[in-house]
């Protein structure tokens, strides 16, 4: 194996490691002999990442209250410059992951391979598989230099699985002086109250799109979601139009979902959207345009008016319960 050491950016909230981090660890330990994590957390995640195959936690201290992009990238770049770096750094396509990847890329003057859904070896180097045009075509990209490879990995690309490893050892990774780049601070955090299952984890997702016609009609999606214990989602078009918050967005720019069942109501299936939901086990689409691309990925497609089909569906389900 030519890839001997991989670092994975480990994100954690209140000591609980993010699922996306665990997914990437599962792939990383397949690819490299040594897998270590870099994190703004510390010893509190050592047992969990150890159980998923990491042997060392590289804890970047002093980041409390700071935006993490600059300090984490600074610490990683300093380690690379000192000759202690890995062959590749993997991170999730998350808010923090993207910030770190961008900063790090400039610091080591190396590109980032983004939107990766799989990692393979090509000519002795790690290469990323990226779906384009809504997942119709896969592009495999490798680096042409020997610099550290930076990869941004899309959520749900791999299945998180414990390896049964012991708790990882913990080592400090220091942050060099960041100057102005390290001056962004978080002054307060707001958690939006949400009821029902989360978009990430729901077994059933019901999403609405522009075909709903107007904002008030999104209620139909909410009602159907409630009846099916599903998470409500949305296409980018209606998020951009301000009908629902960004956190509802499924697609390239939003969440990647892989539920047992995905119901797309009034969504035409722009490539932007398909990338985020094409991996669903079953897909039902309702759209009035028979030519809509969403039907090409649907197990059941109803060519019809969502304003007629959804109320009848809701009524039928209410009658059963």
């Amino acid at each position, binding site marked *: 194996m030519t890839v001997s050491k991989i670092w994975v950016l480990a994100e954690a909230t209140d000591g609980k490691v993010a699922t996306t981090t665990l997914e990437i660890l599962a792939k990383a330990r397949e690819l490299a002999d040594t897998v270590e994590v870099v994190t703004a957390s510390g010893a509190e995640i050592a047992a969990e990442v150890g159980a998923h195959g990491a042997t060392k936690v590289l804890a970047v201290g002093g980041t409390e209250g700071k935006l993490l992009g*600059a300090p984490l990238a600074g610490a990683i770049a300093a380690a690379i410059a000192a000759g202690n770096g890995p062959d590749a750094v993997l991170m999730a396509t*998350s*808010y923090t992951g*993207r*910030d770190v*990847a*961008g900063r790090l890329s*400039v*610091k080591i003057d*190396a*590109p980032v391979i*983004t*939107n990766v859904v799989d990692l393979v070896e*090509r000519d002795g180097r790690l*290469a990323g598989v990226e*779906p*384009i045009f809504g997942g119709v*075509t*896969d592009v495999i*990209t*490798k*680096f*042409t230099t020997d*610099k550290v490879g930076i990869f*941004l990995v899309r959520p749900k690309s791999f299945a998180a699985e414990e390896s049964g490893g012991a708790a990882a050892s913990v080592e400090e990774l220091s942050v060099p002086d960041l*100057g*102005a*780049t390290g*001056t*962004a*601070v*978080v002054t307060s*955090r*707001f*958690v*939006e109250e949400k009821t029902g299952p989360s978009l990430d984890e729901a077994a059933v997702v019901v999403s609405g799109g522009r075909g709903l016609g107007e904002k008030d009609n999104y209620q139909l999606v909410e009602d159907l979601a409630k009846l*099916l214990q599903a998470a409500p989602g949305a296409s980018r078009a209606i*998020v*951009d*139009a301000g009908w629902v918050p*960004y*956190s509802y967005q499924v697609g390239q*720019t939003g969440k990647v979902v892989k539920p047992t069942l995905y119901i797309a109501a009034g969504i035409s299936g722009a490539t*932007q959207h398909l990338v985020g939901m094409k991996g669903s086990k*079953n*897909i039902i689409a*309702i759209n009035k345009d*028979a030519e809509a691309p969403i*039907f*090409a*990925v*649907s*197990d059941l*497609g*109803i*060519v*019809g008016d969502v304003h007629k*089909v959804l109320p009848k*569906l809701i009524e*039928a389900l209410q009658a059963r319960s």
Partner: protein
Amino acid sequence: MLLLMNVVVCVKQIPDPADPGALDPQTNTLKRDGKLILDESDSYGVEMALQLVDTAGGGEVTLVSMAPNGEVSGLRTALAMGAAKAVLVSDPALAGSDALGTSKVLAKAIQRAGEADLILTATESSDGYTGVVPEQIAELLQLPSITFAKEITIEGNTLKVQRQTEAGYDEVESPLPAVVSVTAGVVEPRYPSFKGIMAAKSKPVDQVTVADLGIDPSAVGWAGGGQEIVEVAQAEARAGGTIVEDDGEGFQKIVDLLAELKVI
């Protein structure tokens, strides 16, 4: 309170997303040879910039963009919304530029645009969607950055941003100047007025080459990429399903499938 607020907005001119995309068979990069339009993702940053300048009571919005063939149609849209001027980097050497190459060019172009208090970008473009350019620009300019903004306010020399998070949002602060990426959909971009469209035709567009910016052309484009596409393959297609015309009973087909899948 700042009396003058100069904002640079990075905008991208992209192939119309309504047209199906295609790869150049020679290079495996996205074809960008047709008419280009303003990336809708960028219209939110332009709107936000115009509002910030209004609130400050003075200053102007400058656009920075790079595009092949001196393409300006997308820039004109943003100028018609109210931006004062633009710097356009257009150079055959840029073909095949990746995110890092793009950021190096944009960072120099931002410096050419003059002293900026704030630099706005979208969170990612609608055609390349790497999502790393805002942070790369910030690092190149050695500035603080706040990505995924949904609201921006300026108090004196302090930037206050509501930043999207997985759980909700964070209030984040940094000194100016800074780079901020604006989430799509957080403001309502204005429609250019007829007067605006007419005025945009005579607004200055400073068109420059890579060399004009003091960048070695071999450091950008294909040569400067540092990455290479080694394979392009058809992804596994989903097997087609059943498509039926709704005859008023279409909902029943859904109920049946829900029952079969044991969702109900």
